[in-house]
């Protein structure tokens, strides 16, 4: 027995080192700044906003029921949003899933010009001038994109811009899966 303990003692620094390597491997691959959504699997929060394009027309949560959809939080002052915009245009063209927009703390005129210039991938856009609706959705930065299922429940939140890679490897599979579920 003493012999076994001695052998274990001899290898213990190596074992501890290997355990530490595993922890570091996992830990350093994580993004410490990312705050995962607290609203996964909950119904979409309130979305009562005026449409950006038509100020008099109101939007509400009904738009999220009946089909899988994306809600993309963006603003003209947000540089990363400009980076992801072409990807959103591609997604809109592919007609795989409708994209709704939440224009966050923006200027209406700026937003309309921006969309005219770069293209409009959104089926409809809610104009959240003071950001209060975004707070209800737990938004803490832009861009953020929510995947919402047919019943109007949030199922995933993408923090940061959607790249082609992110779309193909992370988001599109989730969208397809949710579309298959009844």
């Amino acid at each position, binding site marked *: 027995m003493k012999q076994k303990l001695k052998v274990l003692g001899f290898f213990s620094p190596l074992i501890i080192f290997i355990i530490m390597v595993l922890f570091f491997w996992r830990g350093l691959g994580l993004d410490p700044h990312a*705050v995962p959504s*607290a*609203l996964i699997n909950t119904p979409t929060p309130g979305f009562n906003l005026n449409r950006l394009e038509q100020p008099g027309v109101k939007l509400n949560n009904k738009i999220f029921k009946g089909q899988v959809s994306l809600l993309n939080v963006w603003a003209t002052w947000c540089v990363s949003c400009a980076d992801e915009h072409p990807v959103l245009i591609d997604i809109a063209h592919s007609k795989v899933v409708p994209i709704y927009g939440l224009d966050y703390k923006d200027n209406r005129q700026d937003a309309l010009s921006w969309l005219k210039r770069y293209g409009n991938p959104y089926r409809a856009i809610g104009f959240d001038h003071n950001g*209060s609706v975004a707070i209800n959705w737990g938004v803490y*930065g832009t861009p953020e994109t929510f995947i919402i299922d047919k019943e109007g429940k949030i199922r995933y939140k993408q923090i940061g811009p959607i790249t082609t890679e992110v779309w193909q490897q992370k988001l599109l599979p989730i969208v397809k899966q949710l579309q298959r579920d009844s």
Partner: protein
Amino acid sequence: MITNKCLLLILTMLCLGFSLAHAKTTDLYQFATPNQHQRFHKLTFELRCLVCQNQNLADSEAPLAKDLRQQVATKIRQGQTDKQIIDYLVKRYGDFILFKPPLLRITFLLWFGPFILALASIIILLYSIRKKPKQQALTQDDQARLNQLLKPSHKD
């Protein structure tokens, strides 16, 4: 030529400047009672800014922090309790918005881990000290060698 009076004036202005800068956040919000003001101060100190994540809501200049301070102030004026306000924010942003993580099963290691580790280290340390091997008596030959080696050297 900078006179003493001049220096005093500059010093006074600097002091005023520093104190005003510190008063920036909490004094911008008006409350009906000092108790409300105190609650606002306490809450915004214990809530994390999600943009500048090492700062609290009270100190952060991030736009989201300003918005959340506004929300907290409004809710205090509406008569909501501290718990209601905290629940409102945790529901939307998760436990991370609290500087003190709640004591749940999943955070048990976070809270007690250091103490458990310290205790374990002390136990292991005591055990290894106790286990010091007994000194074996030297054989006669070895003793003689030792005496020889320990003799003061005549070469100076």
